């Protein structure tokens, strides 16, 4: 009898628990930005929020016990050649796209054919690939002309999502790769599917009940587009939204005091820094650049402009990545040193003028500009503050029509190459990444060396050398590494920040305890 009661009790609790979890597993996510397209191979930024979990990639990147680890995705296993020039993937069998098309090596080839044919920024992480071929029905191999150690993690980027060849049905003309259809639809294997997109209002993701992998608990994710963060905050506090993003530091600080809301923090891959145009007559002198670096009030900017939500950068590579070194040299405010350097450069007491520009993209940039203006006035450099709408700001960056500019960089994937390979490559002057128009043959060679070095310890040494040289040449002023602050109601469970997919919460692992 007692055994029956025990069994009954266990069953009762299980059923009750299941009922609790099964009710209302609909997550309302508030976003201040709206995608312009659902085409995962044309997506940057906020588009990934919607499309990432509608697709899978050959491999996935995830934090496992504090280390970023590459995990099987649509490929159940893979091989990287010893010289890091060939990447071979062995695909899972029995997986289907949502349109019923089977996953095989031909489908993967089609997806990469489309990605490279479009040639949009989503393919940027994979530009090391020189060719690829189907080996057999479930095996595909990619080759690089030069060894490229960071390559494997590039296959985990959202832009490397595998798209169904079934979209050929929607091509309006041959060779257009169904671009128009893909703007409003998805065609992946992922755990969610876009059920509705009402522009200006919301996108509804529903669980893919035929998903090949671990089934999400959430049945639905409703992404609501609320352009004003104050409104989003009120909706979160009222409980109409479960999670939200793009709040100001003040809003997050206020919401953190609300017992119904929790703020989960983690170091982000987003870094804020200043570009010093190395082609500008005064700034082409390294002593002037170092003087500027010594004049900046780093602590003040982080504390008073950014609300302390981050950490001063220690070197180019953010914390949490291979190559980051906590003991790396960092400039601190030292006016005597700054004045000494200016004198050595032939500008005793400063006596010249520079412009600093910012854009409305980040409201705090203007405040940073004002701090820099004051800081450089202390060493005799007159700074004119200029603000531009973002399109104008970007055009001026692209053409080098600036002296100093506010900037930020988000790695996309937690791979040091995404920083050093773009910031210092003299082939990437301008918006492509080297926004200070810095040129150093030594640095170019070091950047190429780290990309082909297969020994992690040796690679780390090269990365350290790169950072020392970068700090010595001072083409940039490194300000701070941002902190990811995800705001949500306390009933949201299972959230975990993944630096590999910084803009996308882990919807498949989240559930609601309401």
């Amino acid at each position: 009898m007692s055994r029956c009661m025990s069994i009954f009790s266990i069953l009762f609790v299980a059923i009750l628990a299941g009922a609790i979890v099964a009710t209302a597993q609909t997550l309302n996510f508030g976003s201040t930005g709206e995608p312009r397209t659902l085409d995962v191979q044309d997506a940057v930024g906020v588009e990934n929020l919607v499309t990432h979990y509608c697709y899978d990639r050959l491999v996935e990147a995830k934090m496992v016990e504090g280390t970023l680890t590459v995990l099987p995705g649509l490929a159940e296993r893979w091989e990287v050649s010893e010289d890091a020039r060939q990447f071979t993937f062995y695909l899972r069998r029995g997986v289907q796209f949502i349109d019923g098309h089977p996953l095989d090596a031909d489908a993967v080839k089609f997806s990469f054919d489309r990605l490279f044919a479009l040639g949009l920024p989503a393919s940027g992480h994979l530009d090391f690939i020189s060719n690829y071929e189907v080996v057999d029905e479930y095996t595909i191999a990619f080759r690089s002309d030069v060894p490229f150690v960071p390559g494997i993690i590039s296959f985990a980027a959202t832009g490397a999502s595998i798209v169904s060849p079934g979209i050929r049905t929607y091509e309006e003309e041959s060779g257009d790769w169904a671009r128009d259809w893909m703007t409003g639809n998805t065609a992946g294997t992922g755990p969610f599917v876009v059920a509705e997109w009402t522009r200006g209002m919301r996108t509804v993701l529903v669980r893919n009940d035929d998903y090949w992998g671990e089934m999400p608990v959430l049945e639905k994710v409703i992404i609501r587009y609320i352009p004003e963060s104050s409104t989003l905050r009120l909706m979160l506090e009222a409980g109409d939204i479960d999670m939200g993003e793009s709040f100001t530091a003040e809003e997050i600080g206020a919401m953190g005091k609300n017992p119904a809301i929790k703020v989960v923090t983690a170091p982000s891959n987003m870094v804020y820094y200043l570009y010093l145009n190395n082609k500008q007559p005064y700034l082409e002198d390294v002593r002037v650049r170092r003087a500027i670096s010594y004049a900046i009030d780093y602590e003040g900017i982080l504390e008073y402009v950014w609300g302390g939500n981050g950490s001063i950068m220690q070197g180019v590579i953010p914390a949490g990545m291979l190559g980051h070194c906590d003991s790396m040299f960092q400039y601190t405010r030292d006016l005597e040193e700054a004045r000494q350097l200016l004198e050595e450069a032939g500008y005793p007491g400063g006596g010249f003028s520079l412009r600093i520009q910012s854009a409305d993209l980040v409201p705090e940039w203007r405040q940073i500009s004002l701090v820099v203006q004051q800081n450089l006035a202390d060493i005799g450099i007159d700074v004119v503050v200029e603000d531009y709408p973002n399109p104008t700001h970007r055009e001026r960056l692209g053409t080098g029509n600036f002296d100093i500019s506010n900037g930020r960089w988000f790695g996309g994937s937690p791979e040091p190459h995404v920083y050093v390979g773009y910031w210092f490559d003299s082939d990437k002057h301008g918006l492509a990444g080297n926004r200070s128009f810095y040129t150093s043959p030594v640095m170019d060679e070091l950047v190429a060396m780290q990309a082909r070095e297969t020994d992690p310890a040796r690679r780390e040494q090269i990365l350290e050398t790169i950072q020392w040289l970068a700090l010595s040449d001072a083409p940039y002023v490194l300000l701070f590494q941002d902190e990811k602050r995800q705001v949500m109601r306390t009933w949201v469970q299972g959230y975990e920040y993944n630096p590999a997919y910084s803009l996308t919460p882990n919807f498949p692992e989240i559930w609601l305890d309401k």
Partner: protein
Amino acid sequence: MSLIAYVARRIILLIPVLWGVVTLTFFVSHVIPGDAAQLIAGPRATAELIARIRTEYGLDQPLYAQYYQYMLNLLRGDLGTSILTRRPVLHDILQYFPATFELTTAAILVSALTGVTLGVVAAIKKDTWVDHASRVISIVGVSMPMFWMALLMMVLFYVKLGWFPGAGRIGGEPPLRVTGLYVLDGLLTGNWEALGDAISHLVLPVTALSYAVLSRIVRMTRASMLEVLNQDFVQTARAKGLAERTTLFKHALRNALIPVLTVIGLSYGMLLGGALATEIIFAWPGMAHYAVGSVTSLDYPAVMGVVLVIAVLYTVVNMIVDVTYGLIDPRIRY
């Protein structure tokens, strides 16, 4: 000139007005510093990619060639394709315009009815507490920034009292699309749940939007009524023994309405063009929000399309107001 001839003449005059607006907007938007191709290409675009996008969208053509092509397409009814959304601009506008039309029409109706009523009462009860109260209401309306009022209303009626929803056009499924106006579509399709949901979502943004307009209407109505009430014909009407209500509403108000109509018409045109703050605060997916997104992204076809539509609307509203003058005051001839 008959009414029909007058309307026809106004419509014909619309053509050179629109041509001027489109031409001016085209050249101004294209000389603003910025590269649309760079924005589309994204943060890490290579020079080759930017050049390819420029060619794809015809942005590498001389300005006069782009203008010529645009005008040619316009004559065929083609407003072009949005660089950002890759959809026909007309398609985008038809998506966003109903939201703005519904919001602004409701706001103008509320503000006109309330404003005229309050203005008339204030004039009749001049220098009483009613008059003073209307003055306070008007001053608050013109002084307080609309976005601030909108936020205050959200805090009070949404967060604290929970009487109305916070943002968006509708909470659940929209009604089946007939016109794109959720209230009307709810009525036409008999979807009472959607109708109620849409109306409840309209209350706060309509109130915030109508308040500023109402303030101007109240003051104009009051001033106009006071002037008319001092006219001889009003005294004559009273001397004849007409009921006060007839004197006020059939004779006095009718004469006082001309300047009030002008204010209502101008306000409506302005609202249709962009109730940006309200749309942003209440996450209302309307034209203003679309227009700002197009401008900040240098989406030239979308910018041109929005400007063209606003110019047409503004002109049509003004025409309707002018025609209405004649209906109210038979002395006005076309």
